[in-house]
């Protein structure tokens, strides 16, 4: 017990030193500087461009994916296999940007699939197979809608 009492300050100092070193390593590893740099580049671009609603919407969509959707999904995964399983939202910004720029049915496909993947991940993470059926059904259903009903 006496030894432990003598050791305690040293042990707590070691813990604090390790904690700070690891925090610093995590901060360096997570590349926040790169994110800040590109964030500022995007903001500067919007200031340089003529204000265009579509451009603002595209910036908002990309920021939404970069700051919200991807961190929620990929920040909570522990294996490459799971990351691959949830990789669909990696491509959804392309649908959304194309939808904003050209024709909005792609926008709704991108939003619906992303929302379904995130909702499934948060609410029923064990049922990825059901999600794939649901997302596939969204795409097929939207295909029918575009073919027979849209416009």
């Amino acid at each position, binding site marked *: 017990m006496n030894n*432990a*009492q003598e*050791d*305690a*300050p040293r*042990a*707590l100092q*070691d*813990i604090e030193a*390790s*904690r700070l*070193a*690891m*925090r610093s*390593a*995590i901060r360096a590893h997570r590349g926040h500087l790169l994110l800040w740099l590109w964030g500022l580049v995007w903001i500067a671009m919007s200031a340089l461009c003529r204000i265009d609603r579509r451009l603002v919407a595209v910036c908002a969509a990309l920021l939404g994916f970069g700051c919200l959707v991807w961190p929620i999904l990929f*920040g*909570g*995964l*522990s294996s490459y296999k799971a990351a691959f399983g949830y990789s669909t939202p990696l491509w959804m910004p392309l649908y959304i940007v194309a939808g904003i720029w050209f024709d909005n049915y792609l926008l709704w496909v991108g939003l619906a699939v992303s929302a379904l993947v995130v909702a499934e991940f948060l609410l029923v993470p064990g049922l990825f197979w059901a999600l794939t059926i649901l997302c596939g059904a969204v795409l097929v259903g939207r295909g029918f809608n575009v073919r027979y009903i849209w416009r």
Partner: protein
Amino acid sequence: MDQLDYTIHQPARLQIMSVLCQLSDGERVDFTYLKDHLGLTDGNLGAHLSTLEARGYIAADKEFVARRPKTFVAVTPAGRQAFAGHVAALQLLLAPK
């Protein structure tokens, strides 16, 4: 009342647990990173990890990445709890009576 955990109290294991407890749930580090970060040798780190794993404080997974075997280490909920209890016990020892 929290008591000192002498498995964790050993200096190298204390450092290992401090580092691993900084990670969020689901995050893990690979063996080589941990070895370099703590300045330990392969054998030394391996022995300490085995001790912690035997107590259920950490989980080590071996995987192949680019055809090379890699060991990933993460703290378990029991390990997190034990570490928090150990820190509380240390603080209690130093608290004025």
